[in-house]
């Protein structure tokens, strides 16, 4: 219902003159706050000089608005206040690992010795940067048990691309052209997208009733034309693939490679090494397991741990231990002559390397192991506290995330979406919805280890109450949710049918008519 209806129904929402609601301020676009000629940065004009732009000067207005610093600070502060964030509350998104982002990481990443160095400075002037990258590589190799790590990919999906490209290069070096990549049906969309992008046919592998890869089906699908299996472990249903050693053996038996999507590494870091599971190639998400901030959608960093069979193909640049210390290898030559090439400009997401290393050093081997244990403990605690209120997809233990489906909403007229939107009014960001695709109306909850027991108990209380409300037929609160947010449900249909993807000034004709 609209605010007016709500007001008429005495539902407690009042209309204000401004449309503001207390601390929630309506804020126009910067383009609608233009003071032409104004500037929030004081810059001196240069003394007259003879330009050398070859007559290609820019003419005509660009169309950017002019604002003062107070206006800009107020604008973006108001925008920030409309966002939910980890700093605000529990962010239970499955497979995203929304853990606390330590502020020490931000401080250290901003040291001029890291923030203000150029990737193309003479290597002798950036010895500390190479040392940091080497230290990070050492931690990642030790944690994964793998002998090599490619650090340049810019995010997880980019790491997947790196891994599949390297696998293909390894196969081509063996003189083999394989055509298929096996991907579980429960996989994240980036997996099949990556495999298809590299020219492979994606062959989906269904899960067994317990939600894991069906070993028999997998073996039937494996053959000499399979390049790789892309597996997430623990999987996207929050379960550890307990037959993983058999899976690895089966994959290797046909000469294929075992790729692991490391999005869920938080469940096993310090307790299991992927190399010991038979994995040949695994990308890590520094912005998940290793706490670098999600930033509203990036930047991330997706290093890829590699077995010896794939390491020679890793993308440039390489950081190697030479006779005179650390060397940056930027060209195909010597031991790096078989590389797949370069996947990104420069050397990788250094800003995220600093943050991740600070995180790892802060936790240490003991702390990281505790991270996995607490992550798994928190998820299982939610599981047992909620299993009689929501419908648990798989009975029995889970790892760091727990999967529910929408059976508990059957015949209530309330969908998973409605349920999630009601959660928003209670002050929580919803859990992951409708993923993985293998269950109906999925609700995937990953609390992470940085939630206190009190926080979890509070979350449990809210979910129990909402589930009870849903069952007792209070559908209206779910259908109208959220009601207390800066915006209510938004029309995604019209956004897609008639895309408006930028601001445009009003046509002069329209203004004159007013």
């Amino acid at each position, binding site marked *: 219902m*609209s605010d007016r209806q709500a007001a008429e129904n005495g539902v407690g929402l009042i209309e204000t003159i401004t449309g503001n609601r207390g601390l929630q301020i309506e804020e126009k676009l910067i383009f609608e706050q233009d003071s032409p*000629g104004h500037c929030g*940065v004081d810059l001196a004009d*240069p003394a007259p000089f003879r330009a050398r732009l070859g007559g290609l000067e*820019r003419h005509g207005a*660009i*169309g*950017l608005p002019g604002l003062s610093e107070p206006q*800009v*600070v107020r604008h973006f*502060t108001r925008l920030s206040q409309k*966002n939910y964030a980890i*700093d605000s509350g529990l962010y239970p998104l499955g497979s995203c690992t929304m853990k606390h*982002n330590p502020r020490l990481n*931000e401080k*250290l990443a*901003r040291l*001029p*010795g*890291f923030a203000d160095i*150029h990737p193309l*400075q003479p290597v002798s002037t*950036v010895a*500390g940067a190479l040392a940091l990258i080497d230290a990070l590589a050492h931690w990642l190799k030790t944690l994964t048990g793998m002998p090599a790590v490619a650090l340049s990919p810019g995010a997880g999906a*980019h790491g997947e691309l790196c891994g599949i490209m390297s696998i293909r290069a390894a196969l081509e070096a063996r003189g083999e052209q394989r055509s298929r990549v096996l991907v579980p049906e429960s996989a994240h*969309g980036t997996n099949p997208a990556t495999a*298809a992008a590299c*020219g492979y046919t*994606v062959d989906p592998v269904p899960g067994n009733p317990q939600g894991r890869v069906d070993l028999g089906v997998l073996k039937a699908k494996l053959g000499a034309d399979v390049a790789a299996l892309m597996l997430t472990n623990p999987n996207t249903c929050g379960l550890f693939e*307990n037959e993983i*050693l058999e899976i690895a053996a089966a994959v290797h038996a046909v000469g294929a490679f075992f790729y692991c999507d490391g999005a869920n590494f938080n469940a096993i870091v*310090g*307790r299991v090494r992927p190399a010991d599971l038979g994995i040949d190639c695994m990308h890590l998400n520094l912005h998940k397991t290793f706490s670098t901030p*999600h*930033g*509203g*959608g*990036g*930047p991330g*960093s997706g290093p890829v741990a590699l077995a010896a069979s794939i390491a020679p193909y890793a993308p440039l640049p390489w950081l190697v231990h030479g006779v005179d210390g650390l060397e940056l290898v930027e060209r195909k030559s010597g031991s790096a002559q078989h590389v797949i*090439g*370069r996947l*990104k*400009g*420069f*050397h990788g997401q250094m800003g*995220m390397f600093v943050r991740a290393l600070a995180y790892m*050093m802060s936790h*240490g081997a003991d702390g990281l192991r505790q991270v996995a244990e607490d992550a798994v*403990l*928190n998820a*299982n605690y939610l599981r*047992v506290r909620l299993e009689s209120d929501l419908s648990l997809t798989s009975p029995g233990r889970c790892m760091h995330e727990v999967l529910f489906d929408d059976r508990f909403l059957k015949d209530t007229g309330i969908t998973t979406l409605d349920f999630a939107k009601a959660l928003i009014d209670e002050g929580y*960001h919803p859990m992951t919805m409708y993923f993985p695709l293998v269950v109906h109306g999925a609700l995937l909850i990953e609390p992470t280890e940085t939630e206190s027991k009190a926080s979890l108990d509070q979350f449990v209380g809210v979910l129990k109450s909402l589930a009870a409300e849903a069952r007792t037929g209070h559908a209206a609160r779910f259908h109208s949710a959220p009601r207390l947010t*800066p915006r*209510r449900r*938004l029309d995604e249909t019209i956004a897609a049918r008639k*895309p*408006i*993807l930028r601001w445009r000034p009003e046509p002069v004709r329209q203004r004159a008519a007013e």
Partner: protein
Amino acid sequence: MRYLPLTERDRREMLEAIGVDSIDALFADVPPAARLDGLLDLPRAMGEIEVERAISEMAARNVAADSVPFFIGGGAYRHHIPAAVDHLIQRGEFLTSYTPYQPEVSQGTLQYLFEFQTQVALLTGMEVANASLYDGATACAEAVMMANRLTRRNRSVLSGGLHPHYREVCETYARFVGFELAALDPAPGGGEDLAGLVGRDTACVVVQNPDFYGEIRDYSELARICHDAGALLVVVVTEILSLGAIRPPGEMGADIVAAEGQSLGNALNFGGPHLGLFASRDKFVRQMPGRLVGETVDVDGRRGWVLTLSTREQHIRREKATSNICTNSGLCALAFTIHLALLGEAGLIRLARLNHAAAVALIERLERIPGVQLVNRTFFNEFSLRLSRPAAPIVEALAEKGVLAGIPLSRFYPTLPEMADILIVAATEMATGEDMDRFERELAETLA
């Protein structure tokens, strides 16, 4: 451990609630052979003091840009970032929020991305821009792949003036995604014939403006030739600030712009994280990679924003997606948006002028030196010099004297002897007269 809120008592209570004796029971699905019983061979937990000490020690071994006369460009530029930018991006609601999949609680992110998309479109002179990609080099590869999809052709031409990293990334993608590239040789001083290479099998031609050597050109004629052949023109911009001074790609007939936005709002960061910009024509929008934010209304009729046209993306199309991309460069895009909001039209144009003036002032000094010759006819804030001796040892020598003099082209092309004498030099608003004097003095001394 300061980041782990659970107490031992909490853990005991929770294990009891779960009904297991120890945490090991919850790891029972791990095959015994793969279980780590003890700790890995890595240092134990450290407090802030120790971590800061260890990492600061590494930072101290690097020469930071503002501690010396600094003249390095090559696709990443040292500019002044107003103090407000870093304060705002560190607000927890920006720093620690996720991708705006729940628009009702993400209007902050969605609104600034909409502003960002508008800014990028305006700067580049294009109709529509996405919410950013990883960096300029991957944006360039994505542009070529988009051109392939749109033209249903498979072969593209890369100018020799394209940043070598961008070329290399395109070549990697070409090899594995399966398309062809004709990459021209590096061309400091120009002289390549791109028009002659455009045919009816060409998907796109990729040029960079200003190019890797700093030269500025008008690509309008090339755009016409491409369009006559049914091909697209992709223009790469590695120094986005240049668009405050020179004609934008959109006014030259570009179909896709792939650019690097690091110059606005984002520090050098040793090459990452940076900020890929991507812009194109409205009619091509459904073939664009990356996230897009669109305007809409909520149930109360109030204007708001959502991620839109998502069916192009991996989480829906899976193996048929336009790209496998998931993450964009959100916080870097925010920094860009804030910086450009502070600058505004007048400030951007003035800042661009300051940059060009700095480069002009620098070349006037350096051209005086015997053994130094300017290669460029035109430039914005970066140009190429031909020295009387190989540039790499000179750069090393100057570094030892505390001047970061630029990039020797041989770093990218060590096997091309004719490139060994080329030095690529950038001067931004951060280069003072004293810096330039020192550069001139040390270079003259070293060349003498």
